[in-house]
């Protein structure tokens, strides 16, 4: 679904960075994806395989770092990792917590090769 568009955005950002460095090949693109997003690894990899041939990223790898969901309890200050269906504070039982991780959609770095 929307993984195609997301993958194209990843590639566009990677090409821009690689070209700015005069790179000739992208070996690896590292991204972080939060567990609370609706972005599926399989669909992203499929999109990468469809979109990368014929570009600087041909033959390269897309490495996805999954980030667990985490919240902070405003009443007792506890920070805790949680499953998406159980977000209650494990220390004091407060159900209304601030999400602090798990929604990431970040491009972290690009590993490139240059011709000498």
């Amino acid at each position, binding site marked *: *679904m*929307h993984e195609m*568009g*997301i993958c194209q*955005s*990843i590639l566009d*950002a*990677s090409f821009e*960075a*690689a070209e700015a*460095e005069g*790179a000739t090949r992208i070996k690896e693109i590292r*991204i972080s994806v939060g567990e*609370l*997003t*609706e*972005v599926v690894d399989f669909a992203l990899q499929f999109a990468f395989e469809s979109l990368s041939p014929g570009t600087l990223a041909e033959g390269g790898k897309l490495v996805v770092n999954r980030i667990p969901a985490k919240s902070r309890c405003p009443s007792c200050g506890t920070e805790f990792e949680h499953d*998406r*269906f*159980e*977000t*209650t504070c494990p220390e004091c039982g407060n*159900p*209304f917590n601030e999400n602090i991780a798990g929604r990431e*959609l*970040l*491009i*972290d*770095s*690009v*590993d*490139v*090769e*240059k011709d000498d």
Partner: protein
Amino acid sequence: MEIDLSKPILDRNERLAEENRRVFDEKGVFVLDLMASPGAGKTSTILATIDALRDRYGIAVIEGDIASKVDAEKISAHGIPAVQINTGGACHLESDMIQRAISALDLDEIDLLIIENVGNLVCPTEFNLGENAKVMILSVPEGHDKPYKYPNIFEISEAVILNKYDTVSVFDFDEDDFRSVVGKLNPRAPIFPISATKGDGVSAWTEWLAGRIDAARASAEEV
């Protein structure tokens, strides 16, 4: 050689959403992004919302669909400005489409801009448009188990409308289970059971919305 980027993948959409947000703030427009499956009753809910609030606020609507002008024509027939966006296959709206659509509207006359997103429970969730609030509609015939299958949209919505409530007994919709799982995913979100086409329950929803609009105005005046 490793190049450090550390930036949002949807950077361009985020930047354009902020630009839209600035324009809306400057013009004092409250923007609602309404999301739901195809046929859940987005257009019907918008029409009911217009009827309830048109005496209090200047309203306009942006209709997002893959194709056709049907929905925008329904809104225009109600005497409300409507812009149709056809995404040509894309399963959600993005900020640049909104930016183009608002150039066709007189924002000075508008207090409430309602965006009907493309019918989809997944894709619209990752894309900010510059809205004040995202709200979703689930319709009773879709079933009470949808929050288990599509959790993200329930998590990010500020309110959940449960439409076609007139059919609740026909579809054996387990409302207690629905309320319990939505409460786990998003304990702050109010749930509004409504029948958009019959009018039942609509006023609880529109009063909540009016409260949000007035609160946004009050905080803008403080600045």
